[in-house]
C-alpha cells in the first residue's frame, strides 16, 4: 500500500514574548522584547498508509495539534519535510485542500447564523462539486449522520453533538482522501462521543478514507484507531499498533473508593492489585486486568466494607507516558 503521508525530521519552534510584571515590565518588553523559544515539535518522523486510522495522543501542549497544522499546510515548519498525497502542504495548500478534510473541535467552519444546509451548499460551490454529484453525496451523508431534522435550523440553535456531526459532514462533502480530526469530541458527553467514534470507523470502512485523529482522551483513540502515536514534549515516544500498547501499558484500571465508615487500612488479599490510601477514607486501587477481573475486585471490596462511592477509570495518559519512559510497572506485590 502507498504512503499518503510522509513526515521526515519535522521540527517547529514558537517564539513566545515574555513580559515582566506591571507597567515597567510592559515598557521594557516594548523596547527590548525578550523571547522564550518553545519547541512544540521536535524532530519527528512517521508515515501513514492509505486507509489507516492513526490516533495522535498526548497531554495538552504536547505538539499533536501543531503536527496536524503542519501536515495541512497552515503552519510552516522550521525544519524537515512533509509530503501529503504527493503535495507539499505549505507550497500547495490550496491544491491539497481539495483532497483533504479537516475538523477542528474548537474551530467551527459552519456559518453561525445560518442553517447547516446553506453552509453545505456553499462548500459545494467552493469545492467545485458538480450538482448531481453533490446531491448524491449530500443524501448519503445526511442518512449516515442522521441530520435530516436539523438541516434547516440555524447552527447557533444546535446542540454541541448535532453541530459536530454537521461540522464533520461539511468536511466530507468533497470526498477527501484524508481527513484530519483535531479533538473532535472535546466537551461532549459519553453518548455523543460514542456516536462520533462509530461514524469515524464507518467512514474508514466504507470509503477507505485515511483518518488522522488527535485527542487527549485515551479512550477515544483506543476505541477508534488501529495505530497510536503518542507525543510528549514534541517527541514521538510511541508509534505502533493499539493492540500492542493495550497489552503492554493499558492493562490497568483504577478503582476509586470512598468508604462510608472510617477506614485506615484495606486488605484485599489479591495479588494483582495495588492499594493506595489517599486519606479521608478514600482509597485508590490499581488493578492489573491481565490477571484480575475488575468485577472480582469490586465484589471483594463490597464484601469488606460499606461503600459510599465507587468509580472505575482508565489511568490518565500522563501516567502511561511516564511508564513508557521508565518502563515502570505498578507493583505486583501482594498486600
Amino acid at each position, binding site marked *: 500500500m502507498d504512503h499518503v503521508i510522509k513526515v521526515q525530521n519535522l521540527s517547529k519552534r514558537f517564539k513566545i514574548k515574555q513580559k515582566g510584571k506591571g507597567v515597567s515590565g510592559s515598557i521594557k518588553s516594548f523596547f527590548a522584547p525578550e523571547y522564550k523559544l518553545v519547541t512544540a515539535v521536535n524532530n519527528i518522523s512517521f508515515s501513514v498508509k492509505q486507509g489507516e486510522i492513526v490516533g495522535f495522543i498526548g497531554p495538552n501542549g504536547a505538539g499533536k495539534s501543531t503536527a496536524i497544522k503542519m501536515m495541512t499546510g497552515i*503552519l510552516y515548519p522550521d525544519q524537515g519535510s512533509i509530503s501529503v498525497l504527493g503535495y507539499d502542504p505549505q507550497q500547495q495548500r*490550496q491544491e491539497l485542500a481539495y483532497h483533504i478534510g479537516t475538523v477542528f473541535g474548537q474551530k467551527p467552519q459552519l456559518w453561525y447564523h445560518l442553517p447547516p444546509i446553506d453552509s453545505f451548499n*456553499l462548500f459545494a460551490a467552493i469545492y467545485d462539486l458538480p450538482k448531481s454529484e453533490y446531491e448524491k453525496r449530500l443524501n448519503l451523508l445526511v442518512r449516515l449522520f442522521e441530520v435530516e431534522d436539523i438541516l434547516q435550523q440555524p447552527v447557533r440553535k444546535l446542540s454541541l453533538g448535532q453541530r459536530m456531526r454537521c461540522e464533520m459532514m461539511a468536511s466530507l462533502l468533497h470526498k477527501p482522501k484524508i481527513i484530519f480530526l483535531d479533538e473532535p469530541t472535546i466537551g461532549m458527553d459519553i453518548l455523543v462521543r460514542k456516536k462520533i467514534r462509530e461514524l469515524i470507523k464507518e467512514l474508514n470502512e466504507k470509503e477507505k478514507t485515511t483518518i488522522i485523529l488527535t485527542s487527549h482522551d485515551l479512550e477515544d483513540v483506543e476505541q477508534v484507531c488501529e495505530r497510536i502515536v503518542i507525543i510528549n514534549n514534541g517527541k514521538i515516544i510511541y508509534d505502533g499498533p493499539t493492540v500492542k500498547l493495550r497489552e503492554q501499558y493499558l492493562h490497568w484500571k483504577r478503582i476509586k473508593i470512598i468508604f462510608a465508615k472510617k477506614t485506615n487500612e484495606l486488605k484485599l488479599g489479591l495479588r494483582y492489585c495495588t492499594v493506595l490510601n489517599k486519606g479521608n477514607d478514600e482509597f485508590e486501587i490499581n488493578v492489573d486486568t491481565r490477571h484480575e477481573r475488575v468485577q472480582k475486585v469490586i465484589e471483594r471490596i463490597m464484601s469488606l466494607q460499606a461503600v459510599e462511592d465507587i468509580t472505575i477509570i482508565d489511568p490518565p495518559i500522563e501516567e502511561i507516558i511516564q511508564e513508557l519512559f521508565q518502563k515502570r510497572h505498578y507493583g505486583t506485590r501482594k498486600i
Partner: protein
Amino acid sequence: MELAKYSALARISIGNNLVYVKDFFMSSLFIGIILFIFIQLWTVVYGTEAEVIEGFTLGMMIWYLVLTESIVTSPGRLIEDIGAEVQSGTIAQHLLKPYHYLLFKYVTTMGSTVLRFVMTFIIGALLAFFFVGGIKVTLWSVPIIILSLFLALTLHYAFMAAIGVMAFWLEDAESLYLLYQKTIFVFGGMFMPLDIFPAWLESVSKALPFSYVAYYPAHLAVRFDVNEAISVVGMQIVWISVLSVIAWALYRFCVKRITINGG
C-alpha cells in the same frame, strides 16, 4: 468556476449578516448624530456672509460630509474581525479552504459594507435634506459617481486588508488601524474637503492615495466634472492595484509567521 465560488460566498455572507441589521442601523444612527453636529458647526462657520468657501456652498459641504462619513465608516470592524480570527485560531478554517483568504474577506465584507453604506447614507441624506436641502446632480453622472464610490470602498478595503493581515504576525493590528483611520480622517478628507488646507498641504494630501478613499469620490458627487471623473476613476483603479499587490505581498510574508492558537 472561481467566480461562482466567490459569488456564493458573497451571497451567504449577506444572509449571515442580516442578523446584524439592527446593529448596523444603530451604528448608522450614531453616525447620524455626528453628522448633525457637523451640520450645526458648518452652519455657524458659513454664518450669514459666506456664500462659498473654497468652491463649496453650505449644501455642497454637508452632502460632501454625508458621503465621506458613509464611505469611511461602512467597512465596520474588519480589522478587529481579522484580529479576532487570528487570536481564536478560526483563521485555520479559512486557510484550509480552496479560496484565497483576502478575496474571501473582500467578497464577504463587501456585502455588509455596501449595506452599511446605504443605511448611513439614507440617514445622512435625510438630515441634509432637512437642514440644508438638496443639491443639483445631473442624472447621467449618477452611475459614474456610484462607480467611484464603489471603487472608494474597494480601495478602503485594500488598505484595511493590508493592515489586517499584519495581525497574522503581530496578533493585533488595531494600533496600525487607528493610525490609518486618523490619516483618512484628515488627509483623506473625511472631516473637511482638502481644498480648505494650506496650498502645500492640499497638494500633498491630494497626491496621496488616501484622498481617493474619501475626498475625490465625494467631491465628484457634489461638483461633478467629466475630466475629473475620468482621472479619479483611473487613479482609484491604479491605487487599488498597487494596494492589492502590497496586501498580497504582506499576506505572503505574514502567513508564514502565523501561530494558530488553541486546540
